């Protein structure tokens, strides 16, 4: 069995990826009450788009850039315009169901048009390992964690410090007032969809070298991100970060110390406890309860 330290480090690496996916999830909820059940598949598709571009003979770096741009166009702009906009005013549930259908469509499309087999995916982090405090930590885990954390901190700075970021927050918290004081609410909402697409593209790029590119790989990732978002606080970007890291580490520790069979149960039990006793999440603000 690997040492506690190793487990925590690799848990943090996975957690950083969960956090990336979870942040997008909470952003969509905050700005447009979209519960995106296809979020896991959103993090699966970009890797395939990159592979598809790569098959045309483009160099790897170009494939990454073009794949990410395609992701933003499809998962950000097209998703918002074609699916979310027509359904938004009809409540949360029909749209949630539509995103479930979307996840089926995405999985099946990848299976049909690309491959049902798992595809290898080159890593952007160097291989090998470094020694920290006397234990070997793989550079890949380290790189994933560093990349994920940098993106998350960058996003947080953008939201807190820049004018656009603050306008986005205003649009999310109170669209009516935001509109009155001159925030272009529609554009801000579109921006969150674009940011979500960029985040899942990054998550896809980081996670796929570890688990291979497979049409079904979004399922576990989506559920973990979902739990992370709620545990941390559904209405807070900060919450999603803490939730992601916590679930990543907890899941790893549960697998090692509880049982591999019930490892998923630990985070789910945490989810239930959190919702019942602290529904606003670990660091979230309490949301006004609809009676």
């Amino acid at each position, binding site marked *: 069995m690997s040492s506690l330290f190793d487990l925590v480090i690799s848990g943090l690496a996975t957690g950083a990826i969960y956090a990336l996916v979870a942040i997008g999830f909470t952003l969509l909820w905050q700005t447009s009450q979209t*519960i995106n*059940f296809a979020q896991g598949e959103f993090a699966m598709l970009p890797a395939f788009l990159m592979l598809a571009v790569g098959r045309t003979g483009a160099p790897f770096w170009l494939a990454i850039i073009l794949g990410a741009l395609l992701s933003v166009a499809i998962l950000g702009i097209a998703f918002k315009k074609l*699916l979310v906009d*027509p*359904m938004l005013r*009809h*409540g*949360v*549930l*029909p*749209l949630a*169901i*539509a995103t*479930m*259908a*979307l996840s*089926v*469509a995405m999985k*099946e*499309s990848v*299976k*049909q048009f690309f491959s049902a087999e798992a595809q290898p995916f080159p890593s952007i982090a160097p291989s090998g390992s470094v020694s920290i405090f006397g234990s070997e930590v793989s550079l890949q885990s380290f790189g994933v964690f560093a990349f994920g954390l940098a993106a998350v901190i960058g996003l947080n700075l953008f939201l807190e410090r820049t004018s656009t970021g603050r306008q986005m927050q205003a649009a999310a918290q109170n669209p009516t007032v935001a509109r009155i004081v001159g925030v272009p609410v529609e554009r801000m909402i579109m921006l969150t969809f674009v940011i979500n697409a960029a985040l899942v593209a990054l998550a896809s790029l980081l996670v796929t070298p570890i688990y291979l590119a497979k049409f079904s790989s979004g399922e576990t990732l989506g*559920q973990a991100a*979902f*739990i992370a978002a*709620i545990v941390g606080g*559904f209405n807070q970007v900060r919450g999603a970060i803490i939730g992601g890291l916590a679930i990543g580490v907890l899941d790893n520790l549960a697998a090692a110390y509880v049982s591999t*069979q*019930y490892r*998923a*149960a630990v985070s*789910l*039990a945490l*989810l*239930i406890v959190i*919702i*019942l006793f602290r*529904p606003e999440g670990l660091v979230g603000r309490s949301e006004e*309860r*609809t*009676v």
Partner: protein
Amino acid sequence: MTRAHRLLAIAIGAGVVAALVFAPLSLNRYGLYILSLWSVMSIAAIGLNLTLGYAGQVSLAQGAFVGIGAYAAAIMTVDGLPLSLAVATAVALCFVVGWLLGYPALRVQHHYLAFVTLAFSTLAFLVFRNEEWLTNGVYGISGVPRPHIFGLSTTPPLRFYYLCLFTLGVVTLACWRLVRSPWGRAFVALRENPMRALSLGVDTRRYTLMAFAIGSALGGLAGALYAPLAEFVDPTSFTLSLSLNLLMMVIIGGSGFFFGPYLGAMTAVLLPEWLRIAEGYYLIVYALLVMGLLIYSPTGILGILDRYLRDRSAKAASALHAAAGASLPDETAS
């Protein structure tokens, strides 16, 4: 509803029942299986429609109750106990568990409730998969027998289909009574405005728990029929995707419409089969159709009909207004 409308409704109802009774006579084994599955899923969706459509409590756990019912029936009938006893146990068990699952609904609502029930669903799956002493783990329980009714074996697919259809009929009648009873009205009051319901003396606490318990019990009943229908149960049949699928059936059919679950189950069970001509692409086509439908009518299939009827009666009313002058009281809108 006018006399002509009522006659039309009775004629359509009789036609549908006749089709469900006589059309399967010409179906092969697989066709009968699919149609039986439709009846079973309809029962589960009716239960969820009570919880969600009428009482307004979001549940992503209906698939878990179908699983609990199916495992209860499989374990008991494989041990040689009669299916009737297994059905009673499954329904009672799901009623109690559903009642308990209702408690979180007293604390949290809407999407939070969805997440709690979602977690429950996944936990139930883990229990099905891991408690090998009870459920035989990933291998599942095979050889679930079909029952004898009045000494008549229901092993032939046609006879078992009639058993499913009969059960669906009984559930339909019971629910028809329920939604028109004071209970049904209390459920709707709970959905529309819980605060006002409470101030009018509706015991919202009890009805919330009841909405969960009754809906879940119907899920258990569906499961208890599913086990002998498939003659095999394993954990993969009762993952979260079954719960999501059942939720989709309710929404697609038309949440809160009495006949919504039947149409929703038809869409979810039969439509993919009809689309098999599209071969490998059939699930893609299916998913795109579902999205298209929801974009066109977020209130589901019956929402389209409802909108059409309302438009027509509104038009008729305004035509009448125009003819008789604005002083005429509006009587046609009802």
